[in-house]
């Protein structure tokens, strides 16, 4: 009837379990790092090939200027969105179960955003002029074009990355102090520097709490702004199929959808890799599953609502992109319908499925396949109207290699970071341990929680 409570753990055991990924290094960790590193290395080599041969190496051609690099950019920006969202919104709502998940989701954001940030650089063609995207002082009106989506993207990503790193690092400080006490040699020196002299006094905790209160509230508009701007990259143009006022909220919602799917994948991998079965419980999968289910409904609402109103009005300028969706891109559309709607809807509705980690891993993968396909249908059909069909844009080995390289980079960064930080927040977990308990009434027991103070 009620969610299961974690088995009571001693503080020493929590410290040992949650720092094990840092203090012990097995061959498997090296193997995984090597695998991801190799894939990333291959992607980097192919990028060098692209620099030498130009953007045509991707198979992009008129009128499809934006293909795999932008699809990848939108996709990874979306994956990055949910990490901090889960952490910030759950903090704001005082969801007690968040404590085991915040660190791994925030780390997900930092890594995925670093990957997303690479793609505007790849996409600009003349990569050595990347600084034109930045909003540097422009008194003589030389380079930065404030109407350019590239400038918007660079600004949005850099703001979100900076904020997310501050958010992530602030939460790490008390844990770095724990690591300082439990490590030797160069690691001890490293953590001594990173923990900024944390001693755990009452004043320090209060300040950390205030800082978190501010960051939690501030980061929400920042993550909404990131994907709003990504949506506006398309919505502000007058290309039929892109020129839609729903694009910004639709993109935010789509990003949350793919991001929550990615959170499920990360949860499963971290749980299995670091043997954290006592910390990442089925109830966490259950709760994220419920969040994902709600978001999937909202995403479907926007997706179907947009398509439906365009279809119903029969306005030629609106209906073109639907024509392509149902013809040249029907297999991509089928992927969206099966993996983005059928699979999640049929699985997430059942509590038993939501509480089975490996099934939730499948749901996470399914959602991300669907969302990658959805990015394809957003980016490609609209500009290919009346001129080109599916045959005119087929991803080639360069595009596929760079896409694989992005997965490699993400995996490489995440695996590397997991060697230096506790992947489940130690202090938050222990704080939560004090806030939940069982109340015995007569012959029964019921879970009770301490109500948290309001943020601010």
């Amino acid at each position, binding site marked *: 009837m009620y969610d299961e409570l974690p088995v009571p753990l001693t503080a020493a055991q929590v410290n040992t379990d949650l720092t094990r990924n840092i203090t012990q290094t097995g061959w498997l960790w090296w193997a995984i790092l090597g695998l991801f590193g190799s894939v990333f290395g291959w992607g980097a080599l192919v990028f060098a090939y692209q620099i030498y041969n130009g953007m045509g190496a991707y198979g992009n051609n008129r009128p499809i200027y934006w293909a795999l690099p932008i699809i990848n950019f939108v996709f990874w920006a979306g994956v990055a969105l949910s990490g901090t969202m889960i952490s910030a919104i759950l903090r704001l709502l005082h969801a007690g179960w968040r404590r085991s998940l915040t660190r791994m989701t925030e780390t997900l954001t930092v890594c995925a955003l670093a990957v997303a940030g690479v793609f505007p650089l790849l996409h600009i063609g003349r990569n050595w002029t990347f600084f034109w995207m930045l909003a540097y002082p422009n008194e003589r009106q030389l380079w930065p074009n404030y109407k350019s989506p590239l400038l918007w993207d660079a600004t949005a990503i850099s703001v979100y990355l900076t904020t997310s790193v501050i958010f992530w690092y602030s939460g790490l400080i008390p844990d770095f102090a724990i690591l300082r006490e439990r490590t030797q040699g160069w690691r001890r020196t490293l953590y001594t520097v990173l923990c900024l002299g944390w001693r755990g006094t009452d004043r320090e905790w209060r300040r950390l709490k205030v800082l978190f209160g501010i960051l939690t509230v501030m980061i929400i508009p920042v993550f*909404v702004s990131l994907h709003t701007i990504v949506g506006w990259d398309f919505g502000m143009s007058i290309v039929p199929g892109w020129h839609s006022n729903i694009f910004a909220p639709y993109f935010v919602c789509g990003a949350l959808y793919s991001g929550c799917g990615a959170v499920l994948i990360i949860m499963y991998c971290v749980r299995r890799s670091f043997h954290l079965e006592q910390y990442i419980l089925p109830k966490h999968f259950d709760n994220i599953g419920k969040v994902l289910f709600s978001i999937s409904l909202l995403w479907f609402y926007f997706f179907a609502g947009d398509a*439906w*109103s365009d279809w119903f009005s029969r306005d030629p300028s609106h209906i073109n992109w639907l024509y392509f969706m149902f013809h040249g891109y029907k297999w991509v559309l089928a992927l969206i319908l099966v993996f983005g709607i059928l699979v999640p809807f049929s699985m997430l509705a059942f509590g038993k499925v939501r509480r089975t980690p490996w099934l939730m891993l499948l749901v996470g993968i399914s959602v991300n396949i669907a969302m990658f396909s959805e990015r394809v249908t957003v980016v490609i059909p609209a500009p290919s109207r009346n001129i080109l069909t599916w045959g005119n844009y087929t991803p080639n080995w360069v595009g596929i290699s760079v896409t694989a390289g992005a997965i490699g980079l993400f995996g490489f960064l995440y695996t590397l970071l997991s060697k230096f930080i506790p992947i489940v927040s130690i202090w938050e977990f222990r704080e939560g341990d004090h806030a939940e308990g069982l109340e015995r009434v007569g012959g029964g027991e019921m879970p009770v929680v301490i109500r948290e103070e309001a943020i601010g």
Partner: protein
Amino acid sequence: MFDNDNILTSPRSIALSVDASSPLQLVLDEPQQSRLTKLRLMTLICVGLVLAAGVAIYGYAYFGHHRNDPSFWHISLVSLLFWIGLSQGMVALSALLRITHASWRYPLNRLLDIGSLFGLWGPLLLPVLVITRRQIYALGSSDYRDNVWRLSGPIFWDALTIGTAFLAGWMLLYLTSLPDFAILRDRAGEGSKEKKFYTRLAWFWRGSEHQWRVLRRAEGVLVVGILTTFVGSQTVLGWDFQLAAARNWDSSIFAPLYTLSSLLGALALAVLLMTIANRILRGRGFFNSEHYNNLGRFMVAIGLVWFYFRFCDYLTAWYGHLPEEWLIQQSRTSTFPVLVLLMIIGCFGAPVFGNMIPAIRKQPWASCTISLLVLVGLAAQRYLDTVPTFAPRYGTQALLPTLPAIVVFFGIAAMFILTYLLAIRYIPIISWWGIGKSQTRIAQRKMGNTIVTVMVEDPPLWET
């Protein structure tokens, strides 16, 4: 971990000890009859306005020479849709608080649920209002009457979704009132009219554990149903416009914007109703600063999302600058600047910036002022979403409200108020068993030298 005292006293015993008789009884018991007089006067005014609106519809527009007068039909229709949206939003807000286990929801739920009773008579006006109206679909279809009641026509879907949403709301209101009707039945004198009446209303309720379980499960199902039908009905109302091939209406943002607006209006009405209820149930302290605080924060969130959607709508048109699209957006601001200002202040400025300051949102008078501004802003928004699309066709003068249209506008508002005035005669506006339940779930505990609030964790609605 915690002591056992005070936890799990019988909800029924607490419910019975709550000093809240039916609100009308409280008024009747008072030495001064002033409040009763006020209530009667208000009822009379509302009845008068409703009758005047009826006369306006039939006399002026239906049988008169104004069958095609756009200023009449638009205002009437806009105001009716406005109140339908708000009443459904209230029930959805109640469902939302239930599904998120908001621990402060208990005194508020019934007040919000009663809003669904507007659906018993308000939407009946809809066919009357639209039956001779040609203007709305003049831009998209050859003859409006061809659209009425056909499967792909908007009226069929309006009736279906609005009807289903109200039906779910009534079911929730009735089922969650059963334990309170049973208390009233038990309290009524033997052989009295009240006894007979509440015996019928309480139906089979005895308060057995099995019945409580069934009630909770039904509540869970209905809550999900209400949220679904609420989004469905507001979406269909948005689609009435969105699916027409008329510029500005063919916007994919209409459906979610309608849903959001209804929720924002529901929050504003919740604050107003809460304040009035607190005055009627003087000194009982059912609603305190926590309620104002939480509703205010909720309003900040919804106000921000509202602005986000509205801004996306405007910016897309501005940046694209497609002539036909931009013309409509411009005609909004240039032809109706006051209404645009009211909309922005009411839907964004007041709820967001007003409620951002805790000292303001916790003050009932300040919170009520903000809520009134929200309602004005939302009414302006409904008008601006509907009417400017016609401006190029009819000219501004033809669209300005006439006196009968204003009478109908206030008449429909009076219908809503009258719904509450009649409902509180028979239904306890605060759920007794809800209050009892809330009192069993929260307690203060001393830990060291600190007092912390401890509460029983709610199981999910569907796992009872």
